[in-house]
């Protein structure tokens, strides 16, 4: 059963080939799945991966789906590099949307260039607060962030449900659990006529640049990495493990919060229970698939966005359930982890032979 042994020098090239291998394996498994469902795999892949990109509208959709994923992944990667497993981006996104949405509802009908920036700042604060809570619980009470961030996703979801069913329900909304539709100064301006691409793309673009600068050029980024991976060593060097926890959770919460505002002030245009199709979780895969590298995550963000689009297309034209997107996402992460294992380790030369 002992298949592997550690490699002395893991290959850097393979580190980047591994995601491609994972994608290939996902496609192969996907074909088998389509065959099992009595669908022509080639036809299915055309529907899934090609058709969504044959129109300019499709490219626009790709952009507005990739944008929040990339934004959230950039923040998460800071934490992952420091071994802080924040899996609460979904809740942080919702909190950001609630803060930004609250501002939009308050200033509805008013005009002013300052409303949108205020919403974005509000969303950043909301997300950061939701990230700061597990940071507090970890640094003060030693509570694992994996579980607390995850639980806070559910809490945030129920707060959202309460707000759209209660105080912020649209009185003219036919009793649906949703807020008023945002308009005017509370909506992000559309960039390309006839699409839904909006100005939030610039926020993502700016964030990618900032995070690239931060991770490749700054000493703080190095401190964070050491602080998470070897708390004892970093204490010795005068870094604080607590600061690492605070910084990475707040920054990733902030990014998710801004992504939340991007949704409610963009394609969704209101607060409702479905503001995120699981972006917070998908962004985890985006981060790993992009090797926690700011540019790598742009590529993986587009791939993951394509999976969402393909899922929608397959739902409409092939009567496949939308859940197929989640299935592909999970498979992709599985294959990535599996193929990564062969970078750190290699097959034993003789199966079953035990080293002396």
């Amino acid at each position: 059963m002992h298949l592997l042994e550690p490699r002395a020098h893991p290959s850097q090239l393979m580190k980047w080939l591994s995601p491609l291998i994972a994608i290939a394996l996902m496609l192969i498994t996907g074909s088998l799945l389509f065959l099992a469902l009595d669908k022509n795999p080639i036809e299915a892949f055309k529907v899934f991966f090609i058709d969504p990109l044959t129109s300019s509208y499709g490219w626009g959709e790709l952009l507005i789906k990739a944008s929040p994923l990339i934004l959230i992944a950039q923040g998460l990667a800071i934490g992952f590099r420091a071994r802080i497993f924040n899996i609460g981006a979904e809740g942080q996104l919702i909190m950001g949307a609630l803060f930004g949405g609250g501002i939009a509802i308050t200033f509805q009908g008013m005009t002013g260039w300052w409303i949108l920036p205020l919403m974005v700042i509000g969303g950043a604060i909301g997300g950061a607060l939701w990230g700061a809570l597990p940071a507090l619980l970890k640094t003060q009470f030693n509570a694992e962030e994996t579980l607390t961030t995850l639980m806070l996703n559910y809490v945030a979801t129920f707060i959202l449900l309460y707000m759209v069913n209660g105080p912020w329900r649209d009185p003219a909304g036919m009793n649906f659990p949703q807020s008023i539709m945002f308009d005017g100064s509370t909506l992000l301006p559309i960039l390309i006529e006839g699409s839904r691409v909006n100005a939030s793309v610039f926020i993502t673009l700016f964030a990618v640049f900032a995070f690239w600068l931060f991770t490749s050029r700054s000493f703080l980024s190095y401190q964070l990495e050491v602080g998470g991976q070897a708390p004892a060593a970093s204490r010795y060097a005068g870094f604080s493990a607590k600061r690492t926890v605070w910084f990475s959770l707040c920054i990733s919460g902030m990014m998710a919060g801004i992504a939340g505002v991007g949704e409610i002030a963009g394609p969704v245009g209101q607060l409702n229970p479905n503001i995120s199709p699981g972006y917070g979780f998908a962004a985890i895969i985006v981060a790993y698939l992009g090797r926690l590298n700011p540019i790598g995550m742009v590529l993986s963000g587009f791939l993951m966005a394509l999976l969402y689009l393909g899922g929608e297309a397959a739902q409409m034209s092939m009567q496949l359930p939308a859940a197929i997107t989640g299935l592909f996402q999970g498979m992709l992460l599985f294959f990535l982890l599996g193929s990564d294992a062969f970078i750190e380790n290699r097959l034993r030369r003789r199966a079953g032979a035990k080293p002396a």
Partner: protein
Amino acid sequence: MLDLVPILAGTLAAGTPLIFAGLGELVTERTGVINLGVEGMMLIGAVAGFACAAETGMGAGAGLLAGAAAGMGAALLFAILALSLAANQAACGLALTIFGVGLSAFIGQHYVSYSLPGLKPWDIPLLSDIPFLGKVLFHQDFVVYLSIIAFGIVWWVLAKTRLGLLLKAVGESPEAAHAIGYPVLAIRYGATLFGGAMAGIGGAYLSTVYTPLWVENMVAGRGWIAIALVVFATWKPARLMLGAYLFGGVTILQFQAQALGINLPVQLLAALPYAATIVVLVVISRDRKVLQMNLPASLGKSFLP
């Protein structure tokens, strides 16, 4: 007047899926493996159990078996990656959850708006005639009794048997266990598959007995709560039981809130079990000594001999 019988009886039923999933994860973690895929395994178990019960008409019993088998299959995926390939356990568990959410929704698509007959409670002869307690404890469906038997077995194996000793030894020091000739990987595989089967039963209980109809994502975080319960229990089965019923009680609270005079909106009541999990985690984690008393020393670390 407030009737305590349905509240307490409901608490037992609400705690039952947590007991199965929690006991399974407890055994897995005792061997040094942390599987964060419990939520995914429960969902896969839930959909398999529901599909089996709906397609065969053989009822919840068959559904539970199918759930166990499916949960075990899901755990096998995790084990191949995390144990044989020594991939990061936390990431593998997360992948399993994401995969499980997708797979269960995909398969469950066919069963949306189906419902199953559910299970009638069994009255334990004589005991169920005891006033009050009889109605609470001995007028339950058979799975509730089964969960208590499962607890007894897990407790006994861990505390009293050689196998239990071996499981714990592997969790403490896989190197030492390997050096004296124990098959570390096989033991970890066994414990992980057991954890999967138990999570699968927990999930199948939810879909075939507790609320016998299919709803997407119906496990609703109970898998994560089960993982948190293992921490709360400081890896001891008896405390896990206590914790599971505590959470069962909090869950029931939202249905009985009005009777209890609690006037909160339903959505905020529904958030209570998750908030309570955080509070409990904080309380138990505060004292590192208590937390580490039974913490398996190699938890989460891969072992390649």
